[in-house]
């Protein structure tokens, strides 16, 4: 280690060592690139468009979109709290498997998830079969409640994982201190859990809200009809049937606006918890017994059933067709794996750069830019990129590079949200120590940052990889006769009556996405010093 110039530890934010400056410059470059990538297509669309004023039907779509997204975000995060708490304080056989499985619903292609849910909650599903056995009238999944149910199924696990990470980030010392002070569960909640939730919940709710804001196929299929029209469907209609670029651009702009309002609300609510660093002792405080133990068990069981039954349906539907898969599936699978790995790598590097910079010095602009891709309509992004690229290169040749970039951009917000709280805790807990040891640059990354952030990095990279396996929206526009990806093959099989083969291809897609996710997540957990 290099001796310090004047023998005293550099103060926080010391610029002489190069580290923070490089981080900030890197973050500025990432933010600028991301903002350009997301906003330029919208601008390209607007330039080609004539003016447009939203119609009453568009405002109705905005209202429904807001309502379903707000409900989905609220229900997902509120239900995730007891699930995450039970998972944080109980140890049982299969706990790790359940936590890993929590990644799965989020990764399902929309139509596959919908069919899985319908197998359980549909008119001829398990639930209604059970109800009719005991003589009760059937329940309908179609309507606003169905949309929220599907969004909760897709996002509850994500919220649970984000909150669980918050719980695990509270140093065990703090719980023990609470115990020695004679904290009742209520005091624990007030002094330890509530501040943590205050830090984590707004971010989790925001990400789910924004995700549901651009929902289209789930909302329409389970919404039961035109009442359930979302802004994204209106954009789809404008681009596909009406070729009304102005309407599409205006609606996409509205979506950005809604997301910006939600993001400011989340910032207003969130407060850093500031627990300080602990010693990574794995010993947990004794969990409360009695009725709380029974309640935790019930919560875990209910959450597990809610996730496993539809997933099981997806697996069962896929098995019969496995023998009858087309040969084109395998090159498409390789292509999808390539897209997933490259996107995940790019996205992880970019999100880490942004998160480290914002953790060291809060920056609302970076924070906002990191959320931009979520608010983007995939269709507008694809169409705008098409308009930008087409004069230069035949779009057909760009299908895969564009898919990789779009997936990188779309998975970055998740990674960023997962990394930021822990990057902040890392900065608060270790920055002075690391600086006093002159641990900077790559050495700091190697010995401090990567090991300390291994858990969220692994989880985030896994999510990014799996998300990139499943994305369909953009490639459909650029597609060629050569460049099909696995989701596109699923889509084509379904479009050609081959539902069984499509279900099998979807099973392969889900299995591979899940395997990628699992590998990254496990990697992260093993590298975690805690």
């Amino acid at each position: 280690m290099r001796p310090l110039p004047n023998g005293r530890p550099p103060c926080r934010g010391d610029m002489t060592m190069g580290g923070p400056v490089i981080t900030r410059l890197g973050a500025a470059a990432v933010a600028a690139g991301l903002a350009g990538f997301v906003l330029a297509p919208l601008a390209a669309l607007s330039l080609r468009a004539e003016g447009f004023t939203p119609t009453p039907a568009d405002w109705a779509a905005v209202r429904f979109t807001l309502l379903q997204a707000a409900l989905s975000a609220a229900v997902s995060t509120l239900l995730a709290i007891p699930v995450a708490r039970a998972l944080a304080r109980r140890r049982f056989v299969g706990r790790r498997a359940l936590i890993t499985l929590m990644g799965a619903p989020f990764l399902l292609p929309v139509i596959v998830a919908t069919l899985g849910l319908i197998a359980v909650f549909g008119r001829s599903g398990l639930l209604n079969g059970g109800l009719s056995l005991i003589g009760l009238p059937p329940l309908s999944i179609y309507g606003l409640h169905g949309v929220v149910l599907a969004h909760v199924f897709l996002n509850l696990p994500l919220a649970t994982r984000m909150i669980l990470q918050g719980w695990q980030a509270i140093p065990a010392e703090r719980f023990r201190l609470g115990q020695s002070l004679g904290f009742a569960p209520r005091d624990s909640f007030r002094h330890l859990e509530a501040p943590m939730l205050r830090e984590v919940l707004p971010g989790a709710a925001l990400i789910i809200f924004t995700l549901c804001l651009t929902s289209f196929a789930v909302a329409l299929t389970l919404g039961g009809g035109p009442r359930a029209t979302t802004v994204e469907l209106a954009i789809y209609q404008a681009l596909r049937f009406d070729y009304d670029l102005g309407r599409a651009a205006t609606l996409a702009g509205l979506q950005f606006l809604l997301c910006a309002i939600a993001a400011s609300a989340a910032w207003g609510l969130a407060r850093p918890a500031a627990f300080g660093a602990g010693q990574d002792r794995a010993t947990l405080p004794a969990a409360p017994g009695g009725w709380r133990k029974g309640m935790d068990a019930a919560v875990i069981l209910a959450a597990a059933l809610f996730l496993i039954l539809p997933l099981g349906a997806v697996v069962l539907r896929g098995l019969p067709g496995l023998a009858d898969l087309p040969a084109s599936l395998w090159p498409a699978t390789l292509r999808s794996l390539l897209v997933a790995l490259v996107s995940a790598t790019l996205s992880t590097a970019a999100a880490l750069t942004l998160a480290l910079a914002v953790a060291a010095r809060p920056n609302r602009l970076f924070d906002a830019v990191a959320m931009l891709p979520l608010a983007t309509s995939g269709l507008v992004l694809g169409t705008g990129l098409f308009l930008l690229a087409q004069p230069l290169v035949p779009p057909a040749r760009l299908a895969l590079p564009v898919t990789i970039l779009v997936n990188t951009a779309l998975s970055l917000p998740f990674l960023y949200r997962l990394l930021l709280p822990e990057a902040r805790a890392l900065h608060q807990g270790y920055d002075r120590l690391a600086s006093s040891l002159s641990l900077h640059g790559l050495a700091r990354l190697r010995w401090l940052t990567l090991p300390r952030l291994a858990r969220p990095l692994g989880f985030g990279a896994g999510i990014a990889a799996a998300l990139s396996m499943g994305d369909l929206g953009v490639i459909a526009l650029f597609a060629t006769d050569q460049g099909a990806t696995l989701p596109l093959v699923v889509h084509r099989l379904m479009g050609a009556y081959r539902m069984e083969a499509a279900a099998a291809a979807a099973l392969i897609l889900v299995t591979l996405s899940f395997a990628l996710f699992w590998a990254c997540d496990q990697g992260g957990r093993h590298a975690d010093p805690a």
Partner: protein
Amino acid sequence: MTKLLAAGLSVLATTAMAETPVLTVLTYDSFVSEWGPGPAIEKAFEATCACDLQFVGAGDGAALLARIQLEGPSSDADVVLGLDTNLTAAATATGLFAPHGITAKTDLPVPFDDANFLPFDWGWFAFVYDNTKLTTPPTSFTDLAASDLKIVIQDPRSSTPGLGLLMWVKAAYGDKAPQIWADLADNIVTVTPGWSEAYGLFLEGEADMALSYTTSPAYHLIAEQDATKSAAPFSEGHYMQVEVAGKLAATDQPALADAFLAFMQTDGFQAVIPTTNWMYPAVTPAAGLPEGFESLRPATSLLLSATEAQAARDAALAEWQTALSR
């Protein structure tokens, strides 16, 4: 030496000239897949044209039109294949298409004449049901609306069959269409973004019937030896989907594009259609239709002309949306 160089250069030039010309046909996704008509047609046409036929798949029929408009005259495509008559008026209005100059001889149940577009296949929309579960299917829209049968349909704002159903009700009922939709509202389980989702839900047992084609049962019969699916004949008649192709005015291969459109009317193209695209070929092949295709031939065929369809669309869409949003 100079002579040798000149000779060498001229050989190079001839090779470049002799490079196989490429004809690019922009079509919908399911046409190009390995189980779609694309591969067999490519082989058959390349045997006649000394060219390289390349199919480029892009979404569905509506996506094709959007893509052509995005690309404008600079498109690489020479021919667009897969629009239907609900979209051709808009396609013509773009001014991007050129007349084909071919006198179409088709076996469509209705007369068809369009200067820019030639039909390559067609079908009747119909509600498909499982004949082991439903023994007395409805015989009309009013019959269906009065029953408590559940149906899944596609959204006319995102799907070409959905738009077809909208035109079907409009063509059959005119000003009374809103009432039909209002009466159907309680039969509709849900509205899906595309055909695949609706048909998938029907096969999962979520609905008694799904909007599809009269030829859908033929798929199950021929490809799966499954005779349990039938299409319900409706007394109002059945609306048709006529799928067409047209030459782009800005093509750099006008002669090849013309040759392809002419080839489209021959057996090399038409005989492939029934068991790959599961539609009726526009010109019945010499060998006839495969068994299973004659199961339901509606007495009345309904089809709005391209201009009528375009004129009716916005108002019909608003009626549909109002009736089903209540």
